[in-house]
């Protein structure tokens, strides 16, 4: 088992990847069908219902005007965080092990962002006017409010979407060319368009390499800023429990944390169902496991800080907030979050755990459930316990909200399933770089 990664032959790489694009089993269609159906029934149908009747279809109420939609938005933005960010960091640090996974990780970023943006559309009251949040000249001389953290958010997310879109696309150009050369029919035409006439000259490779590194440098601060800015949607308010200086790093760490866990999940699935056992190995899980452990400790640390400052403040607002979080209506969720995100990840100390696939999958899913809970709690606990006790009210998500949450997952899966049939989901040329040049036909490297 140890030698799996070297079992693939240099020439097999192209075949494996192209096969993953061209040869489509029945299972894929079943999976796509289910995901598509769930997206339709659980996401689009309730959303249209909500558009028709109003946000009232969701469970939000007067003090808790934000609910699961916004929690989902932060969650998906968070999930988007590891992909491109991790890929960039690892690219810049020349981590070999990155190469088998970064394409799918980046795709995760892109689609998470996409789903996050749809969550904004679902969240706001009149999505048909969402373009008013974009600055464009008009006869009325009306501009969006540039002082608004939400406006920063729009800018940051659009930039991040563009940046990570270009990044993933650029990295895939040589692969599109490779696939182009091995396919026929409509696929061929598609890849002709996608590969932009890539021929693999030295000049092209040089430019690609330079641009790729340049973008990687650019995206790292961008990614950090995006989630900082998302945190400001909350932290720039004066709501007790939200108005916290630590929120920006807290959100960034949380985002990378959930994103990394998300990568583990996706890689497990790819490895298992796309037959990439050769390329995605224990090494990757081991390394990601270490990263997860680090992030979990960081996350726990910040959480403890938050509790401490809440207690130390001694003000009624902060203190009640703290008490409510630990013992109030949402307390079971809080303790679930602590269990999943702070306690369970301690298992990662064991190398044996890190290198076992199924436990890692379970843990990664648990972490993301925990992280979703965290986002939900940030919204729900704080908003239902604000300054005036006379308007305190508990918020419980409605069926429509839960359905849309499930549907948004399905939407993500659908997009991802479509992606793996269009994008080579592991990087052909970079995986080859890790394999070394074959000595002669039929021979491959041993460990």
């Amino acid at each position, binding site marked *: 088992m140890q030698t799996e990664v070297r079992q693939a032959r240099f020439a097999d790489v192209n075949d494996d990847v192209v096969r993953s694009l061209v040869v489509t089993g029945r299972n894929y269609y079943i999976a796509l069908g289910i995901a598509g159906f769930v997206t339709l029934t659980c996401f689009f149908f309730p959303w249209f219902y909500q558009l028709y009747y109003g946000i009232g279809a969701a469970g939000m109420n007067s*003090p808790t005007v934000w609910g699961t939609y916004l929690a989902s938005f932060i969650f998906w933005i968070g999930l988007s965080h590891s992909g491109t960010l991790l890929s960039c960091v690892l690219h810049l640090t020349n981590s070999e092990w990155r190469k088998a996974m970064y394409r799918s990780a980046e795709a995760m970023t892109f689609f998470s962002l996409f789903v996050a943006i749809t969550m904004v559309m679902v969240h706001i009251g009149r999505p048909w006017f969402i373009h008013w949040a974009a600055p464009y000249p008009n006869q009325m001389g009306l501009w969006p409010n540039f002082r608004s953290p939400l406006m920063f958010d729009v800018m940051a997310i659009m930039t991040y979407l563009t940046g990570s879109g270009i990044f993933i696309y650029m990295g895939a150009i040589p692969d599109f060319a490779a696939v182009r050369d091995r396919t026929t029919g409509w696929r061929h035409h598609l890849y002709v368009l996608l590969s932009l006439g890539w021929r693999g000259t030295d000049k092209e490779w040089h430019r690609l390499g330079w641009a790729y590194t340049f973008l990687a440098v650019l995206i790292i601060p961008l990614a950090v800023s995006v989630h900082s800015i998302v945190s400001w949607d909350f932290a720039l308010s004066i709501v007790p429990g939200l108005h916290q200086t630590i929120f920006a790093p807290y959100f960034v760490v949380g985002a990378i944390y959930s994103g990394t866990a998300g990568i583990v999940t996706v890689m497990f699935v790819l490895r298992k169902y796309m037959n990439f056992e050769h390329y995605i190995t224990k090494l990757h899980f081991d390394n990601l496991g270490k990263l997860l452990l680090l992030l979990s400790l960081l996350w726990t640390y910040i959480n403890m800080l938050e509790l401490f400052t809440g207690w130390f403040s001694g003000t*009624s607002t902060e203190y*009640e907030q703290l008490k409510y979080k630990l013992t109030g209506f949402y307390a079971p969720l809080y303790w679930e979050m602590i269990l999943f995100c702070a306690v369970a990840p301690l298992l990662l100390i064991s190398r044996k755990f890190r290198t076992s696939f199924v436990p890692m999958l379970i843990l990664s899913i648990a972490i993301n459930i925990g992280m979703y809970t965290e986002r939900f709690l940030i919204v729900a606990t704080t908003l239902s316990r604000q*300054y005036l*006790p*006379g*308007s*305190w009210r508990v918020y419980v998500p409605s069926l429509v909200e839960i359905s849309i949450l499930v549907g948004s997952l399905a939407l993500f899966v659908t997009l991802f399933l479509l992606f793996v049939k269009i994008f080579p989901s592991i990087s052909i040329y970079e995986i080859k770089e890790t394999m070394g040049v074959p000595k002669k036909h039929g021979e491959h490297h041993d460990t």
Partner: protein
Amino acid sequence: MSNVDRRQFLKLVGAGGVGAGAGFMLAESIKHPVEYLIPYPIPPEEFSPGIATWYNSVCGMCPAGCGISVRTREGRAKKIEGNPLHPVNQGRLCALGQAGLQTLYNPDRLTGPMLQSGERGSEEFIQTTWEESLATVAHRLAAARDGGKNIYLLSEGVRGHLAMLLERFMDGLGSEHLMHYDFAHPHALYAANQRLFGEHTLPYYDIRNTRYLLSFGADYLSNWLSPVHHSLGFGHSRQGTDLDRGRFVQIEAKMSLSGAAADEWIPARPGSEGILALGLAHQILAGGAYTGSDFDDWNAALAGYSAESVAERTGVAAKTIVRLASEFMKAEPGLAIGGGAVDNHSNAVDTLVAVNLLNYLVGNIGKPGGIVFNSDPVVGGPANNRQANFIAMQQLAEQARHGAIDVLIVNNTNPVFTLPHASGFREALASIPMIVSLSSFMDETTTMADVVLPSHSYLESWGDDMPQPGLGFPVAAISQPVVSPLYNTRATGDIILDLAGKLGMKDSMPWDSMEACLKDGWRQIYERSSPDASDFDTFWRDVLVSGVWGEDIHRQDTVVVDKSVIDNIDVAEPEFSGDSEQYPFFLHPYMSTAMYDGRGANLPWMQELPDPMTSIVYGSWVEMNPATAQQLGLRDGDLVSISSEYGSLEAPVVIFPAIMPEVIAMPIGQGHSAFGRYARDRGTNPLQILAPLTATTSGSLATHATRVSLAATGRRAAPVQTGGDTRQLGRNIVQFTGDDSSAGGHSANLNSIPIVVKTT
């Protein structure tokens, strides 16, 4: 383009066509819908589209008789505000008055005369015409009159010219059975005033100028007599002068809105308030505040009311009794009022005499800040002498059961809802051959009617009003239509006049319409008031503009209390229905701010107005002390069944910090079985399970004399509340400051109440 083949060409044409069609439809879909500009064919005088017109009138939502100004635009009423010229409310208005607009535009209004086509109570009616329905009624009335049969007219408490019309109408029919029925009418207060002061009327309680108000159960800020006027007085007494801040003390078993506003809320055992008042009187005598010649008689009569014995009987600490008495005595002036629960115990009259006695002993009768008596109303006789008490209503039911009533005319009152089941009133109605109802709504009583003659809302009809209680000086106000009638309805006065015409009573009622009747009647006022106006028409127009007329005349009275009162001053222990073992709790039904006696229940604004004390909307509930709830193992929102000897009902528990442990309270107003979509089948009506006990001497229903038992049903039905947590948690939201005022001299002046004499 040479290589475009036929197939390709067709595709292109098709695509172009579909695209063009879609574009066309898109443009069509974003067009404005057609809007119309419809001018009046002949515009009414002084009408301008886009400019609001204000009409002054009189509020018809409760008997207080506030003046209102109604804003209309394009011929539709848009907003009701208080009439600033009216001395009762001085431009202010309560929530119920604001919601009057929704009686006008209520979707469940009756739109035309109807005849019962099914069984009584089935609400099956067929539409008919006014001619037919009035002819039917007139024919029936004529037959009854000529046949010597009994005709009863049961009306809401009306005043002014409508009251006069009703009297003349019944006289013309040869019937003495004209009864006014208002659930909230303070019979006991009238009886007590009669006994102590010899006046069967309500005096003016000058809360505005009092420095110390001792309220025995009277929820004067919410629905007792004239709440808006009392609120004005309350605000003024508190912070409106340079004098000492007025202090307010409320004595009641369950904290009411006025209890919350008071500086001190003192729970006293239900029905023992009169004993407490006599205890205070005893202390006042001891304190030497009373110097009348009959001091010794009083002292002897009150000898049994020492602080200790009163403390034992009322549950109020002896120390508190001594303090209250001394504060009341020293206040310049202090005022004691009684109402609400106190008005509704079996010993109510005794209690209210005792409360009035406090005012008498400290000598603030006929003084600013005390009790001021009213002169007779300027038009018609003394008001409210027709009010039917519970005994009268029971007699009516009894007569009906014996078949002694041939025709019953009900005018806009709803006894089926407000009388307890035990009175058998609803069942008795079945024995009356003919019931005619004049009402704007299909209320419970109207469902029993054979002929429904829908009346105008008060915003569509002419009328006048002399506020009761008066303000110590004569006031009269005009109610005029502010909109043209929405439906095929008629004003009560016009219906009566029409019937009178058909019955040949033109002699006593020569007018064609209510408007003519009013104009005629107000000629008297014009003549007595010698206004600036040169002729009556100018005066009339001025009155219509201002909506109110007043005169600066105060009665100067000295009250002498005779010996018989002194001898009978004792307050008996209250009687209760049900024994204390089986029925351990006192039921305390109270009129809520929004619903009044139930008439607010069909107004969506009132249904959505959170109850101030509990923030509950839509529905009924039962309030209990936290200790009681704990003892019974009940939580907020648990559904309990409440049983008296006369029935039971279910309501959710609301834990209420300011109620005596042995008392449970329920708001009145919900639990309608008819009365439109907003009221029907919502909540429960605690009046239905009351025992038919009456207050001795006043004969009114003792609504607080029923004992009940509680049983958990095991179900939950939390009422809808708009408020969240009720504790401030040290957040300084409502901030307080100490009362640093000390006693000091002052002079109050009754004339500080604005009096409208000149109108424009």
